[in-house]
């Protein structure tokens, strides 16, 4: 009971603002989840498992967005990818001949070159981050979470109106394109 009172007192001090606990723990948990499942995406033999791992990655990234006080992006991430990746997943189910795919070689002949390129990229990142460390101040500023959605809305309809419209056009083109492409030519 005394502990509970102490907790309450702590709260009273904290007031209305969020007091994140164990952010470090959650960050490491989520990023480990994201990276491990990302590795699974590119290594699993069974494409269905790849797609499932991809979803885990995307969901952990959505949680990371939440930790970065970007709730709207997180919500969109969940919604769009739940729908979009869902479709991807279904196509995997329908398209890929599993029995054949499981027996086949999973990586192409240039895998060595690919890994080399990727490692080079990694080295580049390493150098950039090492040297640019002081570009990124240690503790990021607190961003008020409230009104995030409203501000994004205002941003989209004011500063970014043209890109926004172009994006909608892009989606339209994509819809038409996908339908035309997938239609059976009889």
């Amino acid at each position, binding site marked *: *009971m005394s502990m*509970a*009172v102490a*907790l*309450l007192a702590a*709260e009273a001090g*904290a007031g*209305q*603002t*969020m*007091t*994140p*606990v164990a952010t470090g723990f959650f960050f490491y948990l989520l990023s480990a989840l994201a990276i491990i499942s990302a590795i699974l995406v590119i290594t699993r033999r*069974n494409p*269905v*498992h790849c797609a*499932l791992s991809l*979803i885990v990655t995307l*969901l952990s990234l959505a949680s990371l967005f939440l930790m970065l006080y970007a*709730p*709207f992006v*997180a*919500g*969109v991430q*969940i*919604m769009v990818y*739940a*729908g979009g990746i*869902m*479709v991807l*997943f*279904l196509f995997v*189910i329908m398209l890929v001949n599993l029995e054949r795919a499981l027996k086949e070689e999973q990586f192409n002949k240039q895998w060595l070159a690919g890994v080399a390129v990727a490692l080079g990229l990694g080295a580049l990142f390493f150098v950039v981050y090492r040297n640019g460390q002081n570009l990124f101040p240690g503790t990021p500023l607190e961003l008020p*979470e*409230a*009104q*995030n*959605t*409203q501000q994004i809305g*205002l941003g989209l309809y004011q500063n970014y109106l043209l890109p926004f419209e172009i994006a909608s056009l892009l989606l339209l083109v994509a819809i038409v394109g996908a339908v035309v492409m997938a239609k059976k030519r009889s």
Partner: protein
Amino acid sequence: MLQYFQSYLRQPVTPGEAGNYLWATIYVLAVIIGVSLVVLTMNWGERKALAHMQIRLGPMRVGPHGLLQPIADAIKLLIKEDIVPAGADKPVFWLAPVAVVITAWTTLLVVPFGRTHAITDMNIGILFMLGTSSLGVMGIVMAGWSSNSHYPLLGSLRSSAQMVSYEVAMGLTVVSAILMTAMNDSGMYLRHAESANGLAGTLSMIGIVQAQATQGTWFVFKFFPLGLIAFGIFAVAMVAETNRAPFDLPEAESELVAGFHTEYSGFRWSLFMLAEYSGMVAVSSIAVTLWLGGWLRPFATVHGRRIEIPHYWQGGALDFASALLPALLFFGLALACFLAVARMPKLSVFRLQTVGLALFGALLGFVGVVLLAPPVRDRVQDVFWFGAKVAVFMYLYIWYRATFPRYRFDQLMRVGWKVLLPAGLAVLIATAVVGVVL
């Protein structure tokens, strides 16, 4: 302890917002246990209600009037053999029911059972709910695919197509509700300047209910009949979204045996059932929150636009009566139990049942007494009204199931894309226009 309890009860915000982890945890547990209880009750209630609609009695043997039937069923399901088909993709097969339950329960994270009775209030509440509930289809597809059988596969394909297409109509009507939140009490759009004081349109579930309180109307009556149409579309899409009759094609018994969970048995199967009913609670909660004023009681605004619940003797007669309602409901249930006790045959074989029913009635009566106690009454009223509105939807689900034949797949798609989607778009545009013109 009591002091602590009371000081919590005075807290004006949800535990999530307050950053109170202890209470947040308690709320999470309460919601999970509460929803599980609702599922058990629904199990019994659905069978009873369906039975009485179908001139049957329904469960009568296990406990008085079959009250213990859901528990007996739960035990049966738990101790049943757990069969995994030989050709199944085992990890996915194992994960699917878990994924379904997790997504169904995650959705309940932002459901506002009352002003402070939500686990947390999110800035993106409704978006979060729609997103997570649409994730539920993942589990279904996983189940259907991993079973390595034709019926589940067809069921899960149907399910995913159905959920994806009805989500669109659902989303559109939700947007029109969100538009409605962005208006002040005379129906005008709030200027940007006004939005600074937190009165602008909102995606937060609690904010949406508060907007209805401020505007003095439930959104179902807003811009009559626009709100009503939008609500109607949502009410249809929501049934399709939860794969219930008449849109229960994914588990269409007469065609696909049991659809995506054909190959599941025992505990895993019960997880699917749990998720289905939790999903029903979740989408009903969305409907209640968006259109039917959430925890606000009917005619709450007769005495001015009041959001806070007045104390016992302060409000008008209506306030007083409605404050007593939760307790009265439980007293009524207790009375029904005692009536049933009186009607029980006076035979020795029925003695145990009679005593059990009497005890159950006494328990219900006791709950009623507790609900009368002033501190509890104030806090519980919100939850009561929310629960009552959700219960109406739950009953509607049962009613649909008893009444309607099942749609065919192409008809389902036609209804979704050619009826609900254009109607939803029209309502959305009309809402936007009316909001400006009025």
